[in-house]
């Protein structure tokens, strides 16, 4: 039972991170139907920037809280600029191109960002500076750290504010309108270019936040880390029903839980035949099974066949 609860906690933490990244995918997809493959690299840039900023400020003698805040602000702003630039330079000229064209562009951007990061930060693993106090809590036999608590609370707050933004503000309304029908939204006076830019910028800010969380949680970062994380987060978005905000959050948390529980129990379930190094399989297995029965994801609307 203790293992079960412990894995639930681990899954929640990992799932919150997936959910934040998945939101970036799902917002962009919901509005313009594009899989932004470079989103995972935005997360990676966020992590590495935060490490550099926080690391150098700590070395300069700044208190950890201030250094962390500065790192958060710098990384978020940089990622927002990056997301805005990505859309402006790479994707906007391809609005009316054939469907697979932006996908290849996204893959190209992903390769570019990864190698830029490698040139800037090198091939080696970077260690995340000790920003958070190393405090361990124990509750009902379950151990968790301050970082884990911060991650879960901060993502919950972020997701709540995003939901409010999308469902309670004018910008959110414009975003939902553009997602439903860009042409009609345009006729109603929505500037679709601005809405799309906003989706990229907000998604990238979430990515930066998620990037810092990943860095703080695993205490290690690498120029290739964005790829698998992005892949999992995209899987989470599809699992929940891509284009659906609630789906992305639920899909992310669910994926984190499934992975944690799967890794914890697969050895027992298969009599030792499969070990925890099969963890990465769960995400995809669950995805395939869910999509077999619900082809538009768990929370996706059942889209009619459009001619």
């Amino acid at each position: 039972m203790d293992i079960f609860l412990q894995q639930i906690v681990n899954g929640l933490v990992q799932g919150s991170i997936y959910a934040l990244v998945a939101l970036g995918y799902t917002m962009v997809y919901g509005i313009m139907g594009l899989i932004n493959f470079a989103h995972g690299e935005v997360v990676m840039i966020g992590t590495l920037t935060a490490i550099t900023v926080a690391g150098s400020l700590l070395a300069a003698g700044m208190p950890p809280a201030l250094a962390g805040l500065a790192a958060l602000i710098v990384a978020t702003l940089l990622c927002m600029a990056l997301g805005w630039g990505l859309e402006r330079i790479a994707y906007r000229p391809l609005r009316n191109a054939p469907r697979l064209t932006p996908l290849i562009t996204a893959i190209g951007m992903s390769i570019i960002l990864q190698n830029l990061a490698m040139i800037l930060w090198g091939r080696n693993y970077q260690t995340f500076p000790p920003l958070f106090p190393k405090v361990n809590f124990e509750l009902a036999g379950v151990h968790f750290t301050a970082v884990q608590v911060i991650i879960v609370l901060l993502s919950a707050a972020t997701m709540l504010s995003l939901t409010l933004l999308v469902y309670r503000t004018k910008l959110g309304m414009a975003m939902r309108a553009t997602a439903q029908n860009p042409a009609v939204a345009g006729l109603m006076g929505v500037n679709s270019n601005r809405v799309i830019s906003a989706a990229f910028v907000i998604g990238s800010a979430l990515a930066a936040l998620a990037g810092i969380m990943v860095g703080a949680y695993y205490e290690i970062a690498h120029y290739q880390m964005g790829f698998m994380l992005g892949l999992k987060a995209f899987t989470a978005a599809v699992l929940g029903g891509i284009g659906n905000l609630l789906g992305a959050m639920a899909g992310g948390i669910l994926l984190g839980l499934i992975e944690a529980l799967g890794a914890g129990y697969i050895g027992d379930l298969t009599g030792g035949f499969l070990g925890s190094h099969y963890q990465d399989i769960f995400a995809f297995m669950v995805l395939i099974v869910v999509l077999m029965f619900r082809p538009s994801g768990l929370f996706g609307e059942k889209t009619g066949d459009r001619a």
Partner: protein
Amino acid sequence: MSIKNWLLPRSTVGIGLIAIALIALPFALATGGQAWVRIANFAILYVFLALGLNIVVGLAGLLDLGYIAFYAVGAYTWALLASPHFGLHLPVWAILPIGAACACVAGVLLGSPTLKLRGDYLAIVTLGFGEIVRIFMNNLNAPINITNGAQGITLIDPVKIGDFSFAGNSTIFGLTLSGPQKYYFLLVALALLVIVVNLRLQNSRIGRAWQAIREDEIAAKAVGINTRNVKLLAFAMGASFGGIAGGVFAAMQGFVSPESFSLIESVMILAMVVLGGMGHIPGVILGAVLLAILPEALRYGVAPLQQLLFGKVLVDPESLRMLIFGLALVLVMRFKPAGLWPAPERKAHGNPNPEEGRA
């Protein structure tokens, strides 16, 4: 203008010139070292793979991001059946069909649960399938050692027809051919085969059914196409080609490991198809050759160029070459959104403005 088959140019001179160039190429490349022949071999192998994927993506319009899985299945089939790992050394006539069949089964296995899915949902499921295959190959070394895990399988038998082995030097008609050169001719023959199959398929009943599904699945269903079977056939056929290519790859390298079958390879093959011109055979060939050669050419060009410009190597050549590669992908898509050499039909819909005729 009637769209004539591009393989049948106005004169046979064209074919003759292409044939002479293809025959002369390995000898010309060998003067610069066998490494160049190997690069040419990989380019042709990628042409083969890209044309196989073109059946699935270009003709049937099914976005497959896990194509490398079938290549992996073919490669591992060859590796397991013709290496000291299990002590099996089956002849090529047995392994290649088995490899193709295994890949075909894998294709149907992937295809059948995903038939209901559309577009991007299909993309992520195929991507996941590719990763699952790779992870299994990486980990199936315990408790029973099947794939030898991350170390991969070594000492794989080369292609052998009768007593004629494709590895090492041999003399035919007084001409000494090296191993890579022999594989070159084998690969050209295979590539020609897949080109012919693609051409024949394109205008066949099945090919037209695929294109109908690509353009509009509901309409295709309405005119009586059994979309389920036809889509499965596309998966199975693309997968079989992937399996054959994988087998040849394993034999040519003498070594396979899960590392060769990562997602980026699937993405690369898809990029070849899209960059060249989806569904258009000469375009796909162009895309495959370009994307296979560009990183290699950059490998040789990037460091000396920096030396020349700055007097020393400033930036790690490996990452700089991938940077340029990514940039090339982005730029081509920016200025040629339908690919470098798109199918001419797309513009000839009687639409006065061809720019708007693109789907």
